[in-house]
């Protein structure tokens, strides 16, 4: 190569072009620490002690905007400096780790709002005691719902997170497709009922598949697997919540049932191609595209169909969870939480802001626009007005205000951080993959998964 091919002028010209292209962004280093743009948000710079709020991205942008606007208005009214940001908890799942780092570094946000496993955060010791706030809110708006909120948000008799909204997963079905075969989806009570009906409505030639539940690593997949195991009588832990009892004939039976569902020729017509690799978004996309008949999901799929005027919305029925093989129905709701982190600089202001956010004047519009994804977290806020907004909200209310607690994987023990780590390690989906690929028998895969859970518990200080 001849270095003279490029003259100094060439180089300068190249650099100059680059500079022009980037002109819009070029700044002198002196302003680097500042907000380089005139944002529409009042985000004053630098001053220590400004109110810092980080909130989750919502399925409905309008709800997110309402949250944002409420906080901005509050700060303006009080004359406070504000830094408000969003966090998407779904993609990398690193919000708790980030908050841990912030607490350890001594600069956590004052207020966080997200949908998280609170026992894990309590075990990391990064949350402030907020019992006084929950007591005051319960005083104003009734007890916190769902009933599991207490087990998730409390530790040693103290609240460490404030229930802000509630939501529940549900089963969604295309009632038109089932009705065409003479099936009323609300009659499909058990896992067996649903599987058989899904097979009946399937028509692969027309790209329609009845079954839309994956067993791949994803919130929906893990929820389906553990629900199925428990329906068959299997359990993850004993009543103390600290001893692993996963490896049992009941669990093996459930795994055999799922193996048949996902590998047998009999059920092949109801399985959409690629269901083994679905993530949390896949079943939504497929359902919205009208290719699957039934799925287990958060109401996002329902809400999105409604918002976009997707024709599947009119044909969607919301169903309760399948009953267990012993005939019992166990359903749980969950919460979005407001959290004040240890070391936060403006705790009192954050608490005052929380009352403001839950003031019905600010709160009710979020519920009304939340499409079932943002339901009230206090009994007294379930008004007639809320129920009138959507006919299926009554089903959500049934689920969210049920009297008997269902603690999910730890049931009947209350949830704890160790149980929360089982799904984080994708143990059940790996177990199902071992079975469906033929790498292990159901019994071997259950034993393998049991050993991994034991390892997590022992490592976390619960000897087996």
């Amino acid at each position, binding site marked *: 190569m001849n270095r003279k091919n*490029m003259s100094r002028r060439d*180089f300068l010209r190249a650099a100059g072009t680059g500079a022009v292209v980037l002109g*819009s962004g070029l700044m002198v280093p002196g302003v680097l620490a500042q907000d380089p743009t005139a944002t529409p948000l009042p985000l004053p710079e630098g001053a220590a002690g400004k109110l810092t709020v980080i909130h989750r991205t919502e399925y409905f942008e309008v709800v997110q905007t309402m949250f944002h606007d409420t906080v901005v208005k509050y700060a303006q009214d009080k004359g406070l400096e504000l830094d408000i940001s969003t966090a998407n908890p779904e993609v990398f799942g690193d919000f708790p780790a980030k908050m841990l780092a912030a607490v350890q570094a001594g600069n956590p946000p004052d207020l966080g709002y997200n949908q998280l496993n609170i026992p894990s955060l309590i075990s990391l010791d990064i949350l402030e005691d907020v019992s006084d706030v929950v007591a005051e809110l319960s005083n104003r708006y009734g007890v916190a719902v769902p009933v599991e909120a207490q087990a998730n948000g409390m530790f040693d008799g103290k609240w460490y997170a404030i229930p802000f909204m509630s939501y529940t997963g549900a089963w969604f079905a295309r009632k038109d497709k089932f009705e065409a075969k003479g099936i009323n989806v609300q009659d499909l009570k058990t896992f067996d009922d649903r599987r058989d009906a899904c097979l009946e409505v399937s028509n692969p030639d027309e790209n329609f598949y009845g079954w839309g539940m994956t067993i791949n690593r994803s919130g929906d997949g893990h929820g389906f697997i553990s629900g199925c195991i428990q329906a068959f009588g299997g359990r993850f832990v004993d009543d103390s919540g600290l001893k692993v009892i996963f490896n049992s004939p009941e669990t093996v039976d459930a795994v055999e049932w799922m193996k048949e569902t996902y590998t047998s020729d009999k059920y092949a017509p109801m399985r959409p191609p690629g269901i083994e690799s679905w993530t949390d978004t896949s079943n939504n996309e497929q359902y919205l595209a009208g290719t699957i008949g039934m799925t287990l999901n958060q109401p996002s799929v329902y809400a999105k169909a409604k918002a976009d005027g997707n024709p599947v919305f009119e044909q969607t029925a919301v169903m309760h969870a399948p009953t267990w093989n012993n005939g019992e129905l166990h359903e749980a709701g969950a919460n979005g939480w407001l959290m004040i982190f240890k070391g936060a600089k403006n705790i009192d202001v954050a608490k005052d802001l929380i009352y403001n956010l839950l003031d019905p004047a600010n709160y009710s519009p979020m519920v009304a626009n939340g499409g079932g994804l943002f339901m009230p977290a206090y009994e007294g806020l379930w008004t007639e007005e809320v129920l009138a907004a959507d006919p299926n909200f009554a089903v959500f209310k049934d689920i969210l205000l049920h009297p008997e607690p269902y603690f999910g994987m730890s049931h009947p023990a209350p949830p704890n951080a160790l149980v929360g780590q089982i799904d984080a390690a994708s143990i059940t989906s790996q177990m199902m993959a071992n079975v469906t690929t033929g790498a292990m028998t159901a019994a071997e895969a259950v034993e393998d998964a049991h050993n991994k859970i034991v390892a997590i518990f022992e490592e976390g200080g619960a000897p087996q």
Partner: protein
Amino acid sequence: MSTPAKTSPRTVVAQAPSLPKRSRSNTILGRDWRVAYPFILPIVILMALLIFWPFINAILMSMTTRNVVTRTEVYVGLGNYERLLRDSDFISAVGNTLIFTIASLSVKFVVGMTVVLILNSKLPFRSILSGLMLLPWIVPEVVTALAFRSIYDPIFGGLNPILMQLGLINRQVAWLGDPGLALPSVIAVNVWKGIPFYTILLLAGLKAIDREQYEAASVDGASTIKRFRHITLPGLRYVIVVTLLLSFISTFNSFGLIYLMTGGGPGGATRVYSILAYEKAIIGLRFGPGAATAFSMAPLIAVLIFFLARFMRPEQNAMQTDKVSRLDAAGAILGRLLGLFVDLVLIPFEFVSNVSGWFFSMVLPSKEEGVPRLSRNQRDAVSLTSRLALLAVFLIFVLFPFYWIIITSFKTDLQIQRFDSIYWPHPWTFEQYRSLIYDTPFVTWFKNTALVATTSTAISVMLSALGAYALSRLKFRGGGMMTTLLLVTYLLPGTLLFIPLYRILTDLGVINTHWALILTYPTFLMPFATWVMMGYFRSIPVELEEAAMIDGANRFTAFWRITLPLAAPALLSVTLFAFTNAWNEFLFAFVFITSDSLKTLPVGLQLLVFGDIYPWGQLMAASLMMAVPVVAIYIFAQRFLVEGLTAGGLKG
């Protein structure tokens, strides 16, 4: 500066580096230490603070677990490492990682080499074609993953219908769903993303080979295959080794691309070790076991880094030892074995070449003795057609995702959701672009990205140039070690350094400011830039500087006025590399910036996702617009990119 700027020529000669005065400090610290240490000091400070300190932190972390019952941190020594040996997930993750890396590397190398050989031949529109082959480089990982997930979709993706029409498959294939296909499918994406790296480096290496060697071989009657085996391959030996080593390390530590496409699934079919470590540490909040998982692979990478460093500073090794070391002897044996292997691989090609020659001689009518059966023009036409046909296959592979991104960005949400008009928007809409610009902070993100990328690139290139100059020109104690330590940044996935890094950046008062990114980006931009600059500096005759110093310039002036301007092509090419990487960086930006108004584009794209619903149209429109500045620079500067890498940098 040790050398006085204005003294008599005689005095300067006495103090010039070529004629050193052997003082005690020079004996201990090396001949040029006074000059060299200030040159490398900025890099050392940056690396010590932002790589080694968090690194040590992470090692200590790997020896602890969190007792969630008592809510305390417990020291467990090597307990986390021992547990790994019994962990079936870990064993399968290591297997996946090795398969992923080796398969991906092999394909990238073969494809890269083939493409480069074609691009280096006489070809119409050669520079446009070369530019097209570089396109995957500019697409951010987030977008690549999303685009391929959409293409691979078994029911409505773009791939299945095409393969069905070609008769290659007869049913809908779940590319990412079938445990047997998921890993190969992910490998294909890694290959797609990695082709530009191989293309650029190998192309630069090829240009550095003396053409006279080929001409001489042709005169001697050597066949194309023989010329490739005995001139091209040996000539590229150095660049091949360095490219493969760098590529091995980055492929081995791949995280974002796979995680965004499959999350490690189905089951654990694509769970590589970095995903397992991330899953434990960040998602499961089991930092100790996660860090141990990440560090478990460090010895392997460390060995590779050791070899890479040897290649990066060959003259240092030569200086350290005059006789052939055992390692070199082992290397020679390995080299001979590799040569044998290459000979074996090339036998079938040579056979095919001979058979086709024989075929033509039989089929085509014989002319006079000694006159070729095909005229030169005919031979050129056949050769050109076959080369273009082969290149077309690779071009389709490279360009299809762009076509997919473009058409998706012009569809309405409902078209995308309902998978209507898959291959062509009907009707076309600019709505995605409009909403992106007016309804989202896209413009803010764009400006932030431009600011961070430009500044961190400038810092990286400046420090690399200084460091590379010291490492390639000056003799000082610690130079060899420094070259190796520079590469430690590649030792483990960056995702696991972020907790300690976060604390450090907070202590520095820069967390949640653009400085956090401007300071951390050079840690991964500098090693490669330094390597390229070192090679280039080596190719610049040292006499030019010596002459300047005789005329009164000090070392820095000689560097600034003489060497640096001569290294302009290399500066430009490393600037492009660094800028592209900084422009597309995701993880650090994701972690260190929380204020929306300070976020960069790759993170912003992810913010467009609401819950578990992907706004495909907006995402694709955003990625296209995001690529514009990088494409603009590449179009103009592409030829310098290769030239900058060529001169000496890749000769070894």
